């Protein structure tokens, strides 16, 4: 019987599956979150993000597989795990007849903290962090959604957890509030906390997360280091002078992709633009493509590298492609694409073909 504990691995799920009757909400999920990660958990509505978070917190029992946090199995040591976790799941819920301070007192006692006034300093600290000190005695029913969201974060941080699970923490916040939460996440990460952030706001995730996983219809379709994923999503736009040259270049580059220029993932003509090609290739290789074409007497009218964004990648992987009903991921499944899985220690990621 080997120990599941690995200091650097905070969350690990093995074949984690949850079915509600015939509906498979989460299917065969393998996740790995490393210590110190700010891990973005992405996916469209109904993709299984919240179900996964609920399984990590023991609110939902997996149908199959298991979730290991801090080396402990949620089925066996949930209490020990929860002592190290602070969480917000969807809209934070509190007792509406209690003030923010009283709600935090109740939450503190439920978290195993000493009851009474022993923890008043800590309560003041977390209220200060989320900027609610001035409203601490206001009954919760008078709080706006944004204030409740901030109080949820305060409650999550109360017992100084190692791992903070945040499910849509910026829901209901105004832009200034979102910036605040983003800064808070960055501050927590700087303190060495591991953050697991589920969000729809991709720009936000790109700015704060070092690693992401993308879920669609309960299936993990991508997981890895943000920079590497975005590198993998870089494109080069190539415009030629005539449609004929464009066809020659397409054939030439397609052949080269399979031989010399194997760092090109694919080449395709832009629909309804007969002089334009799109190459899925690292943006830094633009000059190499230009030189290659020139060697074959083809001269680009325009060559434009495009750095990918998480939004592009997300949409490519989760939005059904027009006409086919498949996502970009499914459409590309026949061609070579890199999926990044984390290496055990560094969390930097290694690539494997899928």
């Amino acid at each position, binding site marked *: 019987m080997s120990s599941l504990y690995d200091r650097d691995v905070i969350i690990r799920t093995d074949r984690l599956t949850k079915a509600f009757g015939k509906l498979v909400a989460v299917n065969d999920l393998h996740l790995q979150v490393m210590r110190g990660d700010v891990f973005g958990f992405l996916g469209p509505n109904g993709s299984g993000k919240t179900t996964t978070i609920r399984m990590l917190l023991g609110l939902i029992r997996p149908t199959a597989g298991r979730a290991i946090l801090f080396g402990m199995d949620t089925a066996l040591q949930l209490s020990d795990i929860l002592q190290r976790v602070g969480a917000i799941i969807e809209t934070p819920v509190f007792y509406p*007849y209690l003030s923010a301070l009283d709600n935090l*007192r109740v939450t503190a006692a439920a978290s195993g903290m000493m009851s009474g006034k022993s923890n008043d300093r800590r309560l003041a600290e977390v209220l200060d962090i989320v900027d609610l000190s001035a409203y601490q005695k206001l009954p919760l029913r008078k709080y706006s959604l944004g204030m409740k969201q901030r109080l949820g974060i305060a409650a999550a941080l109360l017992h100084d957890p190692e791992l903070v699970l945040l499910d849509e923490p910026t829901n209901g916040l105004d832009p200034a509030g979102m910036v605040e939460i983003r800064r808070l996440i960055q501050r927590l990460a700087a303190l060495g906390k591991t953050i697991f952030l589920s969000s729809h706001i991709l720009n936000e995730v790109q700015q704060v997360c070092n690693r992401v996983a993308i879920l669609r219809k309960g299936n993990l379709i991508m997981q890895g280091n943000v920079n590497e994923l975005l590198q993998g999503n870089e494109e080069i736009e190539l415009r030629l002078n005539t449609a004929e040259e464009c066809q020659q270049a397409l054939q030439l580059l397609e052949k080269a992709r399979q031989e010399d220029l194997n760092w090109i993932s694919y080449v395709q003509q832009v629909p309804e633009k007969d002089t334009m090609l799109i190459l899925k290739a690292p943006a830094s290789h633009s000059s190499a493509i230009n030189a290659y074409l020139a060697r074959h007497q083809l001269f680009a009218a325009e060559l434009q590298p495009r750095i990918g964004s998480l939004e592009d990648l997300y949409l490519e992987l989760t939005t059904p492609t027009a006409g086919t009903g498949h996502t970009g991921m499914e459409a590309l499944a026949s061609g070579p694409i890199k999926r990044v899985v984390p290496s055990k220690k560094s969390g930097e990621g290694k690539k494997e073909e899928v």
Partner: protein
Amino acid sequence: MTAQPPARTNPPALIRRDTVVMGRADYLSTVLRLIGVELYKFRRRPMSKVLLLIGILSMIISFAFKGGPAIFLAHTPTRNLLPPDCSSVETTIDCLNHEPTREELNLAEAERQHRLQEYASLLSLPGSIEGVTQTIQLVELILFIILAGTIVGGEYSVGTVRLMLTRGPTRTQFFLAKVGAILIYAIVGVGILFVVGILSSVVLSMLANIPQSLAFLSGPWLFNCFLYILATILYTFTYCMLALCLGTLGRATTAGVAGALVWWVVESAIQSIILNLPNFHGIIGAVLEVLPGYFMANNLAALIQNRSSYLFGNQPSPFPDLHALLVVAFYLALFLLPAWWAIRRRDITN
């Protein structure tokens, strides 16, 4: 990936900020701390204060219904208790056509004393104790059911069950804390109502010039009185457990409150129907005859009634204590086990 057999792991202890003061983490301490959380919420909740106020007022009012006429009677001049003067009424039957004689006045006074004596048995100790229990069984029980249904079902209705179950306590600890808190509410609530009821009766007796005597007090009497109060607590607690069970299974306050009240009403309705049915013979007759002996309310009431036979000289219940205790224990298991099982096994979704 190969499946490993489940194993418990002991990662290094978490070092927290010095401002975070953790409490004892053993099983019992956690349950006690959660009971403390429940009591804290109760104290801070306006609804609890309203329910307590209604409970106290209804107890005072129930005694005022008995004490009011007694006070009125005690302070009415004796002449007013005589039949009216014939000159002031239209009919001449039952009226007085002469100045009242001393004998008539003495008779009226004796009648007043007789009627005051009837009130005294309700208002003075130990009779007033029985009055307190009757009010608890008939009126206050509804408030206890509302309270129990709310503190359990409310967690699901508002969604705070999510908050509590992601903070570390196990689901069984969460459940035990609810049961423990309800037991404390039942003990304290019944205690407060006994004090309020007895004080009300004492004050009303004084106002009605009814003398109080503590001559009945003795060691065995106090012991039986203690058991009587315990039986009253068990009465309210069992109905609260019914509300807890239904509130948990139905995941809503309404399920707990309405379900328990419906049970309460339906059980007594069924009993009335059975009592009014013509005599059946054979198996049906035998079943109908023994059925009320297994009703929850009858057995809870039997425990109270058996003690009251000692305390107040009433007729004892046809069900002996052991029978009643076993039936009540069965009902408690019937309510607690499915609720515990449901809370342990169910998925907490929205």
